[in-house]
């Protein structure tokens, strides 16, 4: 036999039923959307870091190709070029590379040649540039010409431009994707609110006719959906962070691949997801609920 009801121990029940058949489905869909959004965010962070790393590496370096003239040997010409370049303001280091490195570069075109020393293979000089005031390609070229050297300077500007352009495209694409995912989440919540209001029309009608303010009724749905979205956001964010952590562990210090290096700190980027999901859901639910109540 059940215990007699004790009014002094009574606590007000929620106006909306605790269990709603739509909640698990909504939870799943919003969690998947949040997972995709977090994954996109992590991809953007990793991609931006990679692009910045490459650009920074290329910005700080230049490569000089030196051809020997007259009776001078390629090694001697390279050594002279390195010496001339080291004296140029904005150059931190100039080093003639071993001939094997130059041979390795032309090997794909010449194949296995027995004795490359017989060929006039140009030598390479790696030039380190000052981060703050790097020497320009024109300055380096003029210095080499002044020392009577036949050389071509490559300051990687073409590559840097391409990398920066590619990084920009990736960032904009990811931002668009994030916006689309947030919009999809808002649309899903708005749809669910509409369905929820339709399913709970009895509650809405009773509250409305008993003197509840529109905002009071809208708040019920706003809180309900914000809670569901926050929970879903947390689940989606946790799943994305877990996947990121697994990739970081598998890939070691380089993350997924050298092209997408993930750092442990990147995983913190998923933290705002539950809050943002709740915010999007709350706004969508409020707008939808108020519109529907006003039509009663």
């Amino acid at each position, binding site marked *: 036999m059940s215990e007699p*009801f004790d*009014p002094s121990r009574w606590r007000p*029940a929620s*106006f909306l*039923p*605790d269990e709603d058949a739509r909640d698990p489905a909504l939870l799943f869909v919003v969690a998947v959307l949040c997972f995709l959004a977090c994954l996109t965010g992590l991809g953007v962070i990793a991609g931006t870091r990679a692009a910045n790393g490459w650009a920074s590496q290329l910005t700080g370096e230049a490569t000089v190709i030196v051809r020997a003239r007259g009776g001078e040997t390629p090694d001697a010409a390279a050594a002279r070029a390195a010496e001339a370049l080291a004296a140029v303001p904005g150059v931190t280091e100039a080093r003639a590379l071993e001939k094997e490195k130059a041979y390795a570069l032309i090997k794909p075109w010449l194949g296995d040649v027995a004795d490359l020393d017989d060929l006039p293979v140009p030598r390479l000089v790696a030039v380190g540039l000052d981060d703050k005031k790097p020497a320009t390609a024109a300055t380096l070229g003029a210095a080499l010409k002044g020392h009577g050297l036949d050389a071509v300077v490559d300051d990687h500007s073409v590559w840097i431009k391409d990398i920066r352009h590619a990084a920009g495209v990736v960032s904009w694409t990811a931002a668009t994707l994030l916006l689309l995912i947030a919009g999809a989440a808002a649309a899903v919540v708005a749809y669910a609110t509409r369905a929820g209001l339709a399913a709970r029309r*009895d509650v809405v009608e*009773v509250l409305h*006719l008993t*003197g509840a303010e529109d905002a009071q009724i809208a708040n019920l749905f706003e809180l309900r959906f914000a809670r569901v979205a926050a929970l879903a956001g947390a689940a989606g964010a946790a799943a994305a962070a877990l996947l990121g952590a697994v990739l970081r562990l598998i890939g070691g210090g380089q993350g997924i691949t050298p092209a997408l290096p993930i750092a442990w700190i990147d995983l913190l980027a998923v933290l705002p997801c539950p809050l943002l999901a709740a915010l999007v859901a709350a706004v969508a639910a409020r707008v939808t609920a108020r519109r529907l109540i006003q039509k009663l």
Partner: protein
Amino acid sequence: MTPPVEPSADEILRFAGVSMRYGRGPEVLSDVSLSLPRGSFHFVTGPSGAGKSSLLKLIYLAARPSSGQVRLFGEDIDAMAARDLPRIRRRIGVVFQDLLLLDHLSAFDNTALPLRIAGHKPAEYRNDVAELLTWVGLGQRMNALPPTLAGGEKQRLAIARAVVNRPEILLADEPTGNVDHEMALRIYRLFVELNRLGTTVIIATHDQDLVARSARPVLHLDKGRLRPMPPQGPLAEPGE
């Protein structure tokens, strides 16, 4: 055309040339004028489709007239902004025809609903709600969900919810429609008791026997118009 109704000092409700239609449909109420004094007890009668429920809807502000003026508690409803209507609704208790009980809430929660909406703290009304439920005969069913209650119990629960906030007007739409004669008399006595406590009571009903025996004034509707209705049968108060 119904003659204009002169306002009086103790008037709680006034209709002046009120007509109503749903959407673009035909008029369900035509040129209705009436004035009810505070503390009065009226029946609204008429055949099905005469406009009884529509008349009540206008009073509990679930609908607006297509023409004419409705004054409640001395205020012109048409001139009021939508945000002010909840304040007026809280002064009216309604026993809906289909009861509109919330099935997921206990009898106690259903009854306490208007007080919660009005912003009262549970400590302020816990005992009052329990007392009221006991008064309507549901003292042993406070924790029961509506689907587990019998028809008469549901009806009394709906009445308890309608009066818990001490409304100035109590409206009841066919409150005895689904209960037996004995239960109808018990419910009627409840309304009489509330009326004695000062509540203005308006009951829409098909129960001609109850109306005839109650000796209460009648607003008789026919095809959306108020018509005079001569008293029928002996004027003895049921159960008195």
